[in-house]
């Protein structure tokens, strides 16, 4: 997917001003008559600090991460590995690609009930569904990345006496890396979406559960706290991935990023 670095250079301050203006508007709007479930930004910030102090929030963050991280790691490792291999090994390509591309548009969340039937409603079913969802973008991007390797580079490598495995490691993998990272980024975002859905559907811990529970017990303060935590987790993990990408892909010029 096209990278969402869509902010033109130098627009950060304008964006920040827009953001602050929106928050200010929100804050002012809450001074007028409004329903209970709308809190002002200042109130939300206060509740976040309170929840962090009281220890109400952190166990749920931990429970969520213990589901989403293994799911993301397993799904994306298998996805990238098989995708790269399918990009270079024709028989594997013919075996896997039709299945993957055909099932790609199927919403993976529908497999949650099936997996729940097979392995129970615990964490394993959630991790499995998250891994399944993360597999697809990684496979597809790694596949196109490996297939997009310039043939001249592969020929040069072989010509200079590199073995097939060496060509794979030193030529195909590096040239597929930009797309692999694009896939990882999509998968990371997906892993959080799936995490929340699975936790909202059934769980006894985690941020999705916290949102659900505080919503039904009308504790709107806690609901907003959980939503803020979700947003912060999503944003922080994305930034971490971008940081890794900048280090690994330092050789790629900034414009094509």
């Amino acid at each position: 997917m096209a990278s969402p670095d869509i902010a033109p250079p130098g627009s950060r301050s304008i964006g920040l001003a827009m953001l602050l203006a929106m928050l200010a508007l929100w804050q002012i709007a809450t001074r007028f008559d409004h329903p209970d479930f709308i809190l002002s930004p200042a109130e939300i910030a206060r509740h976040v600090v309170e929840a962090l102090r009281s220890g109400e929030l952190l166990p749920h963050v931990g429970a969520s991460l213990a589901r989403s991280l293994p799911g993301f790691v397993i799904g994306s490792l298998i996805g990238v590995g098989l995708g790269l291999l399918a990009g270079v090994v024709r028989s594997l390509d013919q075996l896997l690609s039709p299945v993957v591309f055909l099932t790609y548009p199927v919403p993976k969340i529908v497999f949650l009930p099936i997996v729940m039937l097979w392995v129970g409603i615990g964490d394993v079913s959630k991790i499995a569904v998250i891994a399944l969802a993360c597999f697809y973008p990684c496979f597809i991007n790694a596949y196109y990345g490996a297939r997009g390797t310039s043939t001249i580079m592969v020929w040069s490598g072989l010509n200079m006496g590199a073995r097939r495995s060496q060509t794979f490691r030193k030529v195909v993998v590096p040239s597929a890396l930009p797309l692999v990272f694009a896939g990882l980024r999509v998968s990371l975002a997906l892993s959080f979406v799936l995490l929340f859905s699975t936790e909202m559907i059934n769980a006894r811990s985690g941020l999705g559960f916290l949102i659900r529970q505080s919503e039904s017990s009308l504790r709107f303060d806690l609901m907003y706290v959980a939503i803020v935590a979700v947003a912060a987790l999503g944003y922080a993990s994305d930034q971490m991935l971008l940081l890794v990408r900048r280090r690994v892909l330092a050789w790629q010029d900034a414009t094509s990023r």
Partner: protein
Amino acid sequence: MSVLWSDPASVVRRVALLAVGLVAWETAARSGWFSPLIVPSIARIGSQLGLLATRPESLVEAWYSLARALGGFALAAVVGVALGVLMGRSALVAAALGPLFSWTYPIPKIALFPIFIYLFGIGSLSKVLLIFLECLYPIVITTQAGGRAVNRVLVWSAANMGASRARILGSVVVPATAPFIFAGFRIALPIAMIVVIITEMISSADGLGYMVMYSLASFKTDRMLAVVVVIALIGVALDRLVVRLRDRLVRWDRLDSYYAE
């Protein structure tokens, strides 16, 4: 993608693979090792599928899901293309909206669903608006990338021939951006399906997502799997539809992959 479909040998291979999968499933179902509750036989899933396809009330459920998904998607398509083109062509709009979009992009919008329920009710509106929000991002991002990449000679020529700014946007920029717009659509449409099923699974009294949860809760796993098959078929069919539409409208650009960077 078209490569995967045109070659007859690959079609044969695909059918063979499907047959192997079905036979393996049926063997597992008949072996007696698993409870029929966990692995129901294909005959039972098939008969449930037949029931789903013939009974008007289950068709209505499918229609609910489809209408929600397509409604949210259509809204996102209109707003997203308009915003994306403007952001791609105007530095001012890009500076104003770009940071907001790129900052909020990694935040899972699904977490806002409870607030949406309070704001817009538990019916279709909260689901449609959440689908709109989730679909908006990929469409805006790809459209903006396309809007920026429009060949400037085309724009200059149109301007030189006396076209107004609005005319240039409508007759030059939008068609030139079309391949990117469709790339965005193709990412967004599966997202619309995902979100509609998720929201219906979480809170709803109708739609296919609700049917999945309801069948599971009443231990009708054959019916549940039949609904899953229906959802899968709808997902694939919608994707094919976008590809068809793209090939008709964007005849001049037949890219194999939609991962246009």
